[in-house]
């Protein structure tokens, strides 16, 4: 199926959920509200004509100061049987920073969702193993948010364990062989 047809099909079926369809260089993205995202994705996965069986990618995007709501969770879906692809974008506001997990539709979404939580702070409701993945568990903040500094002296906000190592190094300096 052509991506345009798929986008229109989603709009036809969920007219209240779809907020817009955009095309850029032949790729279609459908922006939806987050409340019924799982239902929409389930539909895309199970309808025989669509059959999006391959979870290509799942990631978050932060539009701080550019757009409201602030966050988006982007799903790239591919069907190996039909060789077509679609991009679904779910809007997530900052004050209710959570969305339904889709791990029971695609097992492969598990780690992508964990990463999205780790780097953006978006919680996934119903996720079986909701922990940080790339950063240490006691890390403060979510680095891929646009208001997180790229490079700066964090001072007191430095990672706790790093501060401990620095303290220890200072303490042990007295035993240095001169």
């Amino acid at each position, binding site marked *: 199926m052509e991506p345009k047809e798929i986008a229109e099909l989603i709009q036809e079926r969920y007219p209240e959920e779809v907020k817009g369809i955009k095309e*850029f*260089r032949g*790729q279609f*993205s459908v922006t939806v509200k987050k409340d019924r995202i799982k239902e929409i994705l389930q539909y895309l996965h199970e309808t025989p004509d669509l059959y999006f*069986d*391959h*979870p*290509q*990618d799942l*990631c978050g*995007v*932060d539009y701080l100061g*550019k757009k409201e709501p602030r966050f988006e969770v*982007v799903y*790239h879906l591919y069907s*190996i049987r039909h*060789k077509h*692809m679609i*991009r679904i974008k779910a809007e997530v506001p900052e004050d209710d920073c959570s969305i339904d997990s889709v791990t029971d539709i*695609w*097992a*492969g*979404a*598990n*780690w992508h969702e964990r*990463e999205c939580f780790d*780097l953006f702070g978006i919680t996934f409701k119903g996720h079986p193993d909701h922990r940080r*993945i*790339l*950063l*240490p568990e006691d890390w403060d903040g979510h*680095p*891929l948010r646009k208001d*997180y500094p*790229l490079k700066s002296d964090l001072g007191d906000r430095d990672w706790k364990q790093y501060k401990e190592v620095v303290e220890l190094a200072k303490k042990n300096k007295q035993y240095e062989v001169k």
Partner: protein
Amino acid sequence: MAAETKELKTKELTISMGPQHPATHGVLRVVLDLDGESVVKCTPYVGYLHRGVEKLAENRTYLSALPLTDRLDYISSMSNNIGYCVAVERLLGIEPPERAKYIRTIMGELTRISSHIIGVATHALDIGAMTLFLYSFRDREDIMDLFEMTCGARLTVSYPRIGGVRNDVSQEFIDKVYKFADELPKKIVDEYETLIDQNRIWFQRTKGIGVISAEDAVNWGLTGPTLRGSGVPYDVRKYAPYDAYDKVEFDVPVGKAGDVYDRYKCRMEELKQSARIIKQCVEQMPTGPIMAPDASKFTLPPKDMVLKDMESLIRQFVLITKGPIASPEGEIYAATEVPKGELGFYIISDGSGRPYRMRLRAPSFVHVSVLPTLCEGALIADVIANIGTIDIVLGECDR
């Protein structure tokens, strides 16, 4: 005696394998809950190599984000560069010239050969077949020499550019690469396959181990030889061709059982197919430019032109001093088939000349996530075989 044995108590043992362990192919830590010798629970921990590549790329121009991609999968850096360039080209609407496409295809396949032989060799080394490892580094050396001849670098090449490649290849390179591709299939059969494909220990360690069904493999989002070993012929080079892959003939080898042996077999067959692609590319190689004319806005001009030509000098000066150049607004997801699987770049452009968001879909990250499914219920020795078979590089996994 019998009464004494009854009183022996057993309990589950938790061991931490890695992050510094020779068989984890980098800094991967796997926590294993063991009942005797069988694995009850397997929990991988990643992130030791997290460098924030996605965050760094947001603050760089499209040109200067290229070297970041070298450091993802550091044993196949050329493929990552190509993947990044393909993505940015699609975003900017640039079409590289034919010759550049063929050169990139050759480079991509050379990288695939080098990555697969290293992957299979380290996998075999972990299981106990050491000779293969020594052969593989001999052949990899040839590929490294070919890279060095073209762009001066061996490991982190940064050779492809947005809209083409950095410099043209010499006739000497063409001759050598053809000779290499011509000899490779014989080497694979005579040296690699005779060593382990008739070896009973190898069979026992790989056949029926780490089985994943085709349906599960797709559901987990696996790609590359790890998916094709289960019998799904999904290959980005066939499904959504880029560069010159639509102009060459090659087969996509698939397995049946979805076990460690079939995945190994897929990689071995792919080596032969890669050699076939390289030979066709050399035969069909057209002459002409190596850089798209409309890419000049984004890519530095060749160094010899800068020294000779006023226009190029101005262009280089403007590119370095004036900062980013306006790019079209939009978003693109572009996937390429790197040796490990599907490498996807999702780039959002806000028109500023810097990627607003650059998401990397790394195959190794997805492949590590399937490790618990492969290992749970198996023996502890099979964990080693499973880590080898998914062929991971942690630089790419942690980004």
